[in-house]
C-alpha cells in the first residue's frame, strides 16, 4: 500500500485525536469542543507524519465494520483463553506442555502484523517472542501441534480472517 496524500493523513490524525478528546472530556459543551478542535489541529500538524501512512482510507466502511466486529470476537477469545489458563493454574497436577512454536501469516501490512502480534500476546497461553520476515515465534503454554501448519491453524488463523480485511 502506497502512502496517502499529506492532507488525507493530516485529516485522519485530527479526527482520531478529536474523538479521543471527546471521550476524555465526555462533554458536548461548545467551549470544550472548540478548544479540543484547536489542540487536535495543532497536535495533528506535529505528529501526522509518524501517526499514519494510509490516511482517510482507514475509514473505509468495510474496514470499520470488521474492526467493530473484531472487538467482541477478540474479547470472547481472550475470556475463554483466560479461563483455560486459570484451569491450568488451579489444577493440582499443573497440566502444562510449554514450548516455542513457529507460525506463519498471510498478512503483509506492518500495522496488521503488529495487531496480530498484540492479539496473540493478549490471548493467554501464547506470547509473541519475536517476528522475523513474517514468521512468528510464539511461546505456547500447551503445544498441541509443533509443526508450522498446525500451530498456525491454532494460533494465527482465528484472528487472520478479520485482520486481513481490516489491514489489507
Amino acid at each position, binding site marked *: 500500500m502506497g502512502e496517502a496524500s499529506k492532507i488525507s493523513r493530516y485529516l485522519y490524525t485530527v479526527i482520531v485525536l478529536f474523538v*479521543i478528546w*471527546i*471521550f*476524555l*472530556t*465526555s*462533554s458536548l459543551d461548545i467551549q470544550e469542543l472548540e478548544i479540543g478542535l484547536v489542540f487536535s489541529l495543532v497536535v495533528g500538524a506535529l505528529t501526522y507524519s509518524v501517526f499514519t501512512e494510509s490516511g482517510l482510507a482507514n475509514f473505509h466502511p468495510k474496514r470499520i465494520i470488521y474492526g467493530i466486529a473484531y472487538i467482541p470476537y477478540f474479547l470472547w477469545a*481472550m*475470556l475463554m*483463553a*483466560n479461563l483455560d*489458563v*486459570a484451569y491450568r*493454574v*488451579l489444577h493440582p497436577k*499443573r497440566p*502444562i*506442555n*510449554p*514450548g*516455542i*512454536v*513457529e507460525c506463519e501469516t498471510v498478512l503483509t501490512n506492518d500495522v496488521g502484523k503488529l495487531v496480530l*502480534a*498484540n*492479539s496473540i*500476546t*493478549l*490471548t*493467554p*497461553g*501464547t*506470547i*509473541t*517472542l*519475536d517476528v*522475523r520476515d513474517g*514468521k512468528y*515465534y510464539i*511461546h505456547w*503454554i500447551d*503445544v498441541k501441534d*509443533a509443526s508450522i501448519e498446525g500451530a498456525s491453524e491454532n494460533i494465527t488463523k482465528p484472528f487472520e480472517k478479520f485482520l486481513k480485511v481490516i489491514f489489507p
Partner: protein
Amino acid sequence: MSITSTVGEFLVLFGTIFYFLSTLGLIRMPDVYNRMQTATKSATLGSLGVIVGVGIWAIGHVGSYSWVTKTIIIAVFLLLTNPISAHALIRAAYKSGIPLWEGSVVDKYKEALEREEGEQ
C-alpha cells in the same frame, strides 16, 4: 442500588478474581516464560474488569456517564501497550540466555537462530 452499579461491582469482583489467579500462577509455574503467561494475561483481563467495572458502577452510583468514557479510553491504551511490554520482557529473558523449563517440548526459535548463524 441500581442495575448498573450491580453490574459494575460484579465486574470489579471478576477482575480481582483474575488478579488472584495470576498471582497464584506466578508462584506455581516452573520457569520465567510460563510465569509471564499467567502474570501478564490475567493482569490484562483483571485490569480490564476493574477499570471498566468502575466506569459502569459510576453510572448508577454517581449518576454520571463521564466516568465510563474515560475508563474505556484507559482500557484501550492498556490493551495497546501491555502486550508490547510483555513481548519486550520475554524477548529480553530469552536473549539473556534463561533456559526453558526441562518439560518444554519444542524450541523452534533456537532452531531458527542456529539456521541463521549457519548461513552466515
